[in-house]
C-alpha cells in the first residue's frame, strides 16, 4: 500500500501544480474581501441586489430546465435509436455551441425586432406586425437555451454511449418498455452526467454579460459590471464575484457529495455496448419534430441571418489581416485545448487513483476559475502572473529571457485561458472516468502493469468519447472566448472572436457576422475531422 502511494506521487504532484495555478488567482480575489467595505457597498445592496439576483435565479432555473430537457432528449434519442443520418445529426447538434450567446442575442434581436427579418416579411405582405418581446427575461431564456443545450448533449452523450447493454437486457427481462427503462434505469444512472452538463450551462449563464445587457435584463453579472464600470469600484465588484464564487463552490461541493453517494455501481465494457435499436413510429415523429424545431432556431435561422448580414457587409468589410487572425485563432485554440485536456486527465486520474480528501477537493477547486465573470477573473489572473513575473525576473535575466516574460507575451493569454477552461475539460473527462470505474484499471495492475501503463493502455481507449467531448467543448469555447482574450492579449493580436466583438460592440453587426460565420465554419471543420477520426478507429477495431 505504502509503495503504491509513493509510486503515484508524481501524479499528485502534477495535480497539485495544476490546481494551485487555478487556486491562487481565485485566492487573490477572496483576499480582497478583507479590504474595508467601500461606501458603495451599501448602495449596491440597497438598489441592485434584490432584483438582479431574482433575475439571475429565474434565468438559471429556466435555462437549466430547458437545456436539461432538450439536451437529454436529443442526446439520448440519438444514442439509443437508429437514425439514417445519425452522423450528420450528431454534428448538427453541436453547431449551436459555436455561436457566442451574445451574438445569438443580436441575431434574435435582429430577427424579431423592429425592421428585423420577420418584420420585413410582414411589411412585404402588408400585414401589421406585433413584435414578440424578445428583449425580455423570456427572450433571454430562449436564446440561452438554444445556444447552450449542446453542452448537455455533449456531456450526457459520452455517458449514454458507454452504458452497458446488460442494463437494457435486464430491464427488458423485468418487463419494462423503452420509456420506463429510460426513466427507471437510465435516467437515475446518468443523472450525474446530465447535471455536469447543466452545471456548465449554469456557469455560462452566470458569467454572461453581453446578451443580458443588450436585452436589458439586469442580472447578478450586471451588478458586478455596473459596480466596476459605473461606480469605478473594482473592490466591490470583486466582493460580488467572490460571493458568486463561494455560492457556486458550495453548490458544487454538495452536488459532488450527492453524486458520490449515488455512484454505487459502474457500468461496464465497451464491447458490451448495445446496438442501436429501432424505435416506435411515435418516437420517431416526436423526435424528428423536436430535432427539426431545435435546429431551425439554433442553426438554420441564425446562420441564415448571419449569411444575410455578411452579404450586406461585402462592400464594407476589410479582410486584409485575415490570414494572421485565422492562424492566431486556430493555433491558440489548439494549444489551449491540448493543455486543458492533458491537465484534466492528470487531475481526474489523480482523483480516481488517489482517492483522498485532498484529491477530491482538487476536483472541486478546478471549477473555481469558471464561476467568476471572465473580466474579473482576467484581472485576478493578470495580477497573479504579474507577481510571478516580478518574482522570476532575476531568473529571466539569468537565462537571458525577456523581462516580464509571461505578462508581456502571449504566454499570459495562453495560461489564463487554460486555467479558465480547465473546468470544461475536466468536467467531461471526470464524468467519463467515474463511469469506467476502477475494475479494469485494477485488473491491469494485478497483471503487473504500472498505474500509468494501465491508464494509458486500458483506461484511455475507453475514455475516448469523453476525451472527444472535452476536446470539442474546450476548442469551441476557446474559439468564441471573449473577455479574457480581449483584455490579456498582447499588442496587435486579434482572433476571430475579438473581431466579432469589436464590430458588434460598435453596432456593426453586418461586419461582425462575417467573423462569426468563420467561427462556426472552423468549429464545423473540427467536428468533421473528429467524425472522420472516429470512423477510422471503428474500422481499426473491425
Amino acid at each position, binding site marked *: 500500500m505504502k509503495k503504491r502511494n509513493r509510486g503515484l506521487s508524481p501524479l499528485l504532484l502534477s495535480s497539485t501544480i495544476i490546481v494551485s495555478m487555478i487556486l491562487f488567482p481565485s485566492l487573490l480575489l477572496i483576499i480582497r474581501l478583507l479590504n474595508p467595505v467601500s461606501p458603495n457597498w451599501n448602495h449596491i445592496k440597497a438598489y441592485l441586489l434584490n432584483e438582479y439576483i431574482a433575475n439571475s435565479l429565474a434565468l438559471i432555473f429556466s435555462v437549466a430546465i430547458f437545456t436539461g430537457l432538450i439536451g437529454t432528449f436529443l442526446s439520448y434519442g440519438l444514442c439509443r435509436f437508429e437514425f439514417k443520418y445519425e452522423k450528420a445529426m450528431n454534428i448538427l447538434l453541436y453547431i449551436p455551441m459555436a455561436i457566442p450567446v451574445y451574438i445569438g442575442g443580436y441575431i434574435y434581436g435582429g430577427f424579431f425586432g423592429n425592421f428585423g427579418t420577420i418584420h420585413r416579411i410582414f411589411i412585404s405582405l402588408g400585414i401589421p406586425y406585433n413584435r414578440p418581446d424578445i428583449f425580455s427575461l423570456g427572450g433571454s431564456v430562449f436564446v440561452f437555451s438554444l445556444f447552450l443545450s449542446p453542452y448537455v448533449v455533449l456531456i450526457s452523450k459520452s455517458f449514454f454511449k458507454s452504458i452497458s447493454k446488460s442494463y437494457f437486457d435486464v430491464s427488458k427481462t423485468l418487463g419494462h418498455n423503452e420509456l420506463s427503462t429510460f426513466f427507471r434505469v437510465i435516467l437515475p444512472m446518468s443523472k450525474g452526467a446530465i447535471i455536469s452538463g447543466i452545471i456548465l450551462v449554469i456557469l455560462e449563464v452566470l458569467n454572461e454579460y453581453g446578451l443580458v445587457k443588450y436585452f436589458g435584463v439586469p442580472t447578478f453579472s450586471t451588478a458586478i459590471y455596473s459596480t466596476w464600470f*459605473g461606480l469605478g469600484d473594482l473592490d466591490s465588484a470583486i466582493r460580488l464575484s467572490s460571493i458568486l464564487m463561494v455560492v457556486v463552490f458550495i453548490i458544487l461541493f454538495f452536488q459532488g457529495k450527492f453524486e458520490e453517494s449515488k455512484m454505487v455501481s459502474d457500468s461496464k465494457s465497451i464491447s458490451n455496448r448495445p446496438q442501436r435499436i429501432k424505435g416506435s413510429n411515435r418516437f420517431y415523429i416526436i423526435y424528428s419534430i423536436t430535432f427539426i424545431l431545435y435546429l431551425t432556431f439554433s442553426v438554420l435561422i441564425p446562420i441564415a441571418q448571419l449569411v444575410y448580414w455578411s452579404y450586406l457587409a461585402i462592400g464594407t468589410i476589410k479582410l486584409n489581416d485575415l490570414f494572421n487572425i485565422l492562424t492566431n485563432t486556430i493555433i491558440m485554440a489548439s494549444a489551449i485545448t491540448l493543455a486543458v485536456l*492533458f491537465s484534466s486527465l492528470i487531475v481526474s486520474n489523480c482523483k480516481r487513483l488517489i482517492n483522498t480528501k485532498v484529491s477530491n477537493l482538487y476536483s472541486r477547486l478546478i471549477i473555481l476559475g469558471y464561476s467568476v465573470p471572465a473580466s474579473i477573473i482576467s*484581472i485576478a489572473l493578470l495580477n497573479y502572473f504579474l507577481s510571478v513575473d516580478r518574482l522570476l525576473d532575476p531568473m529571466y535575466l539569468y537565462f537571458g529571457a525577456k523581462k516580464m516574460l509571461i505578462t508581456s507575451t502571449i504566454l499570459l493569454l*495562453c495560461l489564463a485561458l487554460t486555467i479558465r477552461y480547465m473546468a470544461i475539460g475536466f468536467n467531461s473527462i471526470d464524468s467519463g472516468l467515474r463511469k469506467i470505474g476502477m475494475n479494469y484499471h485494477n485488473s491491469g495492475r494485478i497483471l503487473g502493469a504500472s498505474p*500509468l501503463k494501465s491508464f494509458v493502455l486500458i483506461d484511455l481507449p475507453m475514455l475516448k468519447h469523453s476525451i472527444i467531448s472535452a476536446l470539442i467543448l474546450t476548442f469551441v469555447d476557446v474559439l468564441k472566448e471573449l473577455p479574457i482574450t*480581449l*483584455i490579456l492579449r498582447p*499588442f496587435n*493580436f486579434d482572433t476571430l472572436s475579438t473581431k466579432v466583438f*469589436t464590430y458588434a460592440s460598435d453596432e456593426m453587426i453586418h461586419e461582425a457576422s462575417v467573423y462569426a460565420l468563420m467561427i462556426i465554419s472552423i468549429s464545423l471543420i473540427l467536428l468533421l475531422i473528429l467524425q472522420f477520426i472516429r470512423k477510422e478507429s471503428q474500422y481499426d477495431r473491425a
Partner: protein
Amino acid sequence: MKKILLVSSILVLAISILGCTAKTNSDEINNSTESINTSISTENIVNIYTDRHYDTDQELYDKFTSETGIGVNVVKAGSDELLERLAAEGEETSADLIITSDVGRLYRANENGLTKITSSDIIKSNVDSKYIDEQDRFVALTMRARIIAYSLDRVDPSALSTYEDLTDERWSGKVLVRSSSNIYNQSLLASFIELNGEEQAEKWASAMLSSMARDPEGNDRDQMKAVVAGEGDLAIVNTYYLGKLLNSSDPIEVEVGSKIGVFFPNQETNGTHINISGASLTKYGKNSENAIKLLEFLTGEAAQYQYANANFEYPVNPNVEPSDLLKGWGEFKVQDIQLSKLGELNGKAVEIFNKVGWK
C-alpha cells in the same frame, strides 16, 4: 513509467507554450514588415491601449507609421479593463497612450494616477480649447452629440425644446432610450448633475421613467428603429449612430434613418450634451514623445478630416468641417461644461440611475 508521466507533462506544456510563442514570433515578423523593428528598437514605436475599435483608427495609425516611421502597436479592449491592466502593470507597462471613447474614463485614469500631463503646442493649436482638459490631463480626438431623434411623420420639431422637457406629460410613454449601463447615458446625467444640481438631476431621471415608451433595451440603432416602427416618438441617441444608420449597407436601415429627424436640445439654454473620444499619456510610458507625435498627427487636419468623413464624428480641430451629413443637421451650441466634470460625476450619475430604477 512515472518518469514518462512527468516528462510528457513537461513536454506538452512546452509544446503548448512553444505553439503560443511561435505565433508571437510570426506576429512580430508580420508587424515588422509594417513597422520597422517592432521588437528590437524601443525608440521608434508607440504602444496604445484603446477602446475605440474602428477600422478608421487603424487606417490612421498605418498612415502615421508610413509618414513618420514610428510603429504603432495596439491593444483594443473595454476601457475599464484597460485601465485596470494599466494599473496592475504599474511601472512595467508598455503602453504609452490610452484612448477611450468617453471622457469619464480618461478622468478616472488620471484620478488613479495612471496618466501624465500632455503638453504640446501643436496639439493646442490643433484642437479647440474647450476640448482640451484645462490641466492638460487629456485631449479630445473626436466629439459626438447626444441628441433627440424624432419621428418625421408624427413629431413637429417646434414642440421640442430641452432634455428636461422630455419629462413633460406630453411625452409620457413616448420616449425611447437605452439602459443606464450605457456610458453615454451616464455622462448625460452627469452633465445634468453639474448644471442643475443633484436633486434636479435625480428628479429628471425619475420622471423619465414615466416618459419611457418601454423598459430600456437594445442599442442606439434599435431605439431609432423603434421610433420609426411607432413604439415611441422620440429617442435619445448619439449622432454617430444615426450617421451609421443612414450609411448602412442595408437599404431598409437607410430608409429607417431617413424617417428620423435630428433635434439638438437645450439650444436656448445650456447647450446640447456632447462626449468625446480622447487620449492621455500613460504615466510610465516609455515612448511618450512618439505618443505626443501621434496625438499631434491625429488632431491634425488630415486625420480630423478622415475621422469626420469615415466615422460620422465631429472633428475637434476647428479648421476641419464636419462631414456633409453632419453639416446638414445644422450647427449647434455645445453644453458649456468642463469635460472632466463628466468623469468626476459619473459615479454619482450611476448611483442616481440605480436609485430611481432606470434599468
